């Protein structure tokens, strides 16, 4: 049996075609679809260019009797051409935004940075102050563009997460060293505690993305922790997971705000965010990356005492290789 919609997507005329007498082209497509479709896991897709573009998502279901005897197969075909086109348009738009916004920023950041270094002559204090503002804001804009692109790519599933053994402590050390100057400015202690009693702290994941998660979380903690406070990263293995925690003695988040912090564009207090220069996207990116690894993330906080963000990553079985210790 074959329904009219299926005949249409196979390129046959539902008014004229009989299921038992399909035109050779439609029969060939049907056989190709049956071959491509898998009974379980992610649905397969096939794409035809003629007579017009058609993208089909396929699922195959094995039909069996109550006794388990095979009765046949059910092929489910969904026309996803329009969805695919919209996705491609979105991707093109993202590439355009990425290119068109980053290109002018190169000159703005580059010239302001070069002038600030005094390479084109000495600057008066007021000139320096003005240029520093241009440079700071350009950097902020670059970070916003980067965050937007990340959110978009991650949410559309177009970001590839590598699955390699990653020595999380090495990654954390690197991130901490990168952020130490920022911590030192306000005399905040930045610590790393690695508990290896329950096994090696080696995750299975994407080193660069794990570093991005830690950078975002530590960056947040540093922003919201007062002078002479403490920000600590704690790492340990818990069964088949690696538990990572970023703990600070910052201002904390009110209980009623906690469920919303991982939403896109969420900002606890807009005034504070504006002062600290966030985009409201950092935690949404973090959550997406952790979940794309198959991990979980949660937050605990108390106003005036501090915040603890915990997330898990799948542990690498045994210890084949540790992550590269080189900087990227």
């Amino acid at each position, binding site marked *: 049996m074959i329904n009219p919609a299926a005949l249409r997507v196979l390129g046959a005329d539902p008014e004229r075609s009989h299921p038992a007498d399909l035109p050779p082209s439609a029969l060939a497509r049907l056989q190709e679809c049956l071959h491509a479709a898998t009974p379980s896991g992610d649905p397969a897709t096939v794409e035809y260019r003629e007579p017009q573009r058609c993208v089909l998502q396929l699922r195959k279901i094995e039909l069996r009797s109550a006794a388990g005897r095979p009765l046949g197969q059910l092929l489910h075909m969904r026309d996803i051409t329009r969805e695919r086109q919209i996705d491609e348009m979105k991707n093109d738009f993202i*590439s355009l935004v*990425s*290119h068109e916004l*980053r*290109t*002018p*920023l*190169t*000159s*703005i*950041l*580059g*010239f302001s*940075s*070069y002038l600030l*270094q005094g*390479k*084109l002559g000495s600057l008066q204090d007021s000139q320096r102050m003005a240029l520093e503002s241009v440079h700071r804001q*350009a950097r902020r804009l*670059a970070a916003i563009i*980067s965050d937007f*692109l990340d959110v978009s*790519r991650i949410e559309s599933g177009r*970001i*590839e997460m590598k699955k390699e053994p990653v020595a999380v402590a090495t990654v954390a050390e690197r991130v901490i060293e990168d952020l130490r100057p920022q911590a030192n400015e306000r005399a905040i202690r930045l610590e790393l505690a690695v508990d290896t009693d329950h096994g090696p702290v080696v995750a299975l994941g994407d080193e660069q993305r794990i570093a991005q998660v830690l950078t975002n979380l530590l960056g947040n903690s540093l922003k919201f922790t007062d002078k002479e406070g403490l920000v600590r990263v704690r790492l340990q293995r818990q069964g088949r997971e690696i538990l990572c925690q970023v703990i600070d003695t910052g201002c904390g988040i009110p209980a009623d705000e906690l469920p919303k912090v991982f939403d896109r564009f969420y900002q606890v207090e807009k005034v504070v965010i504006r002062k600290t220069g966030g985009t409201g996207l950092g935690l949404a990116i973090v959550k997406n990356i952790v979940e794309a690894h198959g991990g979980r993330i949660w937050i605990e906080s108390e106003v005036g005492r501090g915040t603890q963000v915990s997330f898990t990553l799948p542990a690498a079985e045994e210890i084949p290789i540790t992550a590269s210790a080189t900087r990227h």
Partner: protein
Amino acid sequence: MAARILVIEDEPENRLLIGLVLRNEGYDVLEAEDGTTGLASAERHRPDLILLDVMMPGINGFEVYERLQQHPCLRAIPVLMLTALAQRAEIERAVEMGVTGYLTKPFEPNDLLAAIAGALASARERRTAS
């Protein structure tokens, strides 16, 4: 003698920035506004290093790189790619193709200078070893 650097970049403001920074640091700078002009300039002037933008009208940076690799006299020139794409697939493609390095726009002049110094030093080492 100052190292000669060819900058192939379609965006005039970025050429202005890169040219100014490099000349200020004592490099001999050649500029090309597209891939075709860049390839002709490379063939004529045999630069010590090429800074190559990826997204350009006409032939893009990847195609320029491929053509450089096909040229027996130009394939050894170190190439640093400049990309605003910042997508891992694009960067990995550049690395797989064998480019010496890449910089993601926007970049700081110091990062550019450090990348150039590193690429020139590696090229010198290779020449000495061979």
